[in-house]
């Protein structure tokens, strides 16, 4: 039996390729239409990961680069959520990777020359596998805003980059999460590549007082939705129906 196809991607929900207010997209956007493919084995398969691929502490950015009991500067946060598909089913055992600037808005990257200070105790990356319920969690610090050369006075809102695999190459996704209440979100040319304001709301991590740890860290919740797939036909129990 042929495995079920993934739902086609809603291209009106994602940013288009050509978004002139985000200047770098102008010369890096394909101009011809994408060729629509029906799913084949090449799209419904994809890389899988096991606990042996990563270390247990890889999801703790408060300690995974810190020296000798040191700790990064900044607002300590718990970032957590679930990876679901469009049928609202959990996506277990999938790799979630994040990267971010430190609390002063500086990246630990040899190409970042921003004035903000590097933090000797902060690397800025983490990775984790989702559990059986699709849940994931990271400890980190809230990143700072930083300026970038787009407009002469453009600032990126505080954000964390998120990479997710899902179960199939067709589900591969990279996005960025923002923080509830940040006034820079509405001014950001990269956020504004997304045409639908409702879709933008899906990228905003919400303050979560229930998971906030008193006298320790503030929690934000960010759920990630990957493409769903159609039901398997001709089974007693129609999946997802």
């Amino acid at each position, binding site marked *: 039996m042929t495995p079920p196809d993934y739902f086609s991607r809603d291209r009106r929900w994602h940013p288009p390729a050509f978004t002139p207010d985000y200047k770098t997209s102008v010369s890096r956007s394909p101009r011809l239409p994408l060729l629509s493919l029906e799913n084949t084995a090449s799209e419904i398969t994809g890389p899988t990961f096991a606990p042996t691929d990563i270390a247990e502490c890889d999801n703790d950015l408060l300690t995974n680069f810190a020296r000798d009991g040191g700790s990064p500067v900044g607002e300590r946060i718990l970032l957590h959520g679930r990876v679901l598909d469009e049928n609202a089913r959990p996506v277990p055992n999938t790799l979630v990777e994040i990267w971010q600037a430190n609390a002063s808005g500086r*990246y630990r*990257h040899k190409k970042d020359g921003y004035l903000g200070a590097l933090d000797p105790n902060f690397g800025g990356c983490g990775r984790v596998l989702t559990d059986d319920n699709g849940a994931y969690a990271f400890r980190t610090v809230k990143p700072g805003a930083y300026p970038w050369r787009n407009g002469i006075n453009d600032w990126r809102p505080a954000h964390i980059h998120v990479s997710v695999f899902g179960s199939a190459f067709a589900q591969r996704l990279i996005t960025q999460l923002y923080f509830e209440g940040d006034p820079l979100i509405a001014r950001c040319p990269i956020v504004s590549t997304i045409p639908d304001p409702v879709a933008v709301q899906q990228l905003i991590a919400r303050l979560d007082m229930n998971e906030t740890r008193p006298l320790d860290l503030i929690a934000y919740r960010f759920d990630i939705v990957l493409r769903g797939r159609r039901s398997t036909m001709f089974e007693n129990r129609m999946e997802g129906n």
Partner: protein
Amino acid sequence: MTSLKETPSQTAGPYVHIGLAPGAAGFDIYETELGQDIAGPEAKGQRIRIEGQVLDGTGAPLKDVLLEVWQANAKGIYAHRETPQPEGKPQQVEAGFRGWGRVISDFDTGDWQFETVKPGPVHGRGGQMMAPHINLWIVARGINVGLNTRLYFEEEHEANGNDPVLKLIEQTARRSTLLARRQGQADTDTAETPLVYRFDIHLQGPDETVFFDI
């Protein structure tokens, strides 16, 4: 039934290496970086090396691009439970074969390369065979949604001519944008010496690569 919308994509930005290849960003943090060995030492078949650049609309190479590779082994089997089982009995990939890898460009030149084995033909839809190909996913600063494409091999004339995906490309001249070109001499063909192919990806312009909505 509950229905959700897919999380919208955002650009990977110029510092994608921090998250996905921190060694290239200039620091050591993980015990193992993922995606560094696509085929593994046990994989059978012809060893190949692919060299290329990703070029923007002005013809300049991207120096901050990251590509992910996804491919079947020399028998056309993916390292995944939903790989087609053509013989009717479960077939497995060689130990260590992942078929997945991460490739980044040189920060000064934009050149990238990766080594693997040449994949075999893969079962497509409706019993048709797909010519040997490598699936690629491309992210970078300025790319709002990761781009999907495929790399085929120029010498596979017959298989390429019957490939159901290549045949979908109406503008036949554009099919060649998906062909990797053999470099060097044919007499170096041994399983141990990698065959070298050139594959440049053009994001726009007269040679714009065919990208897919998968």
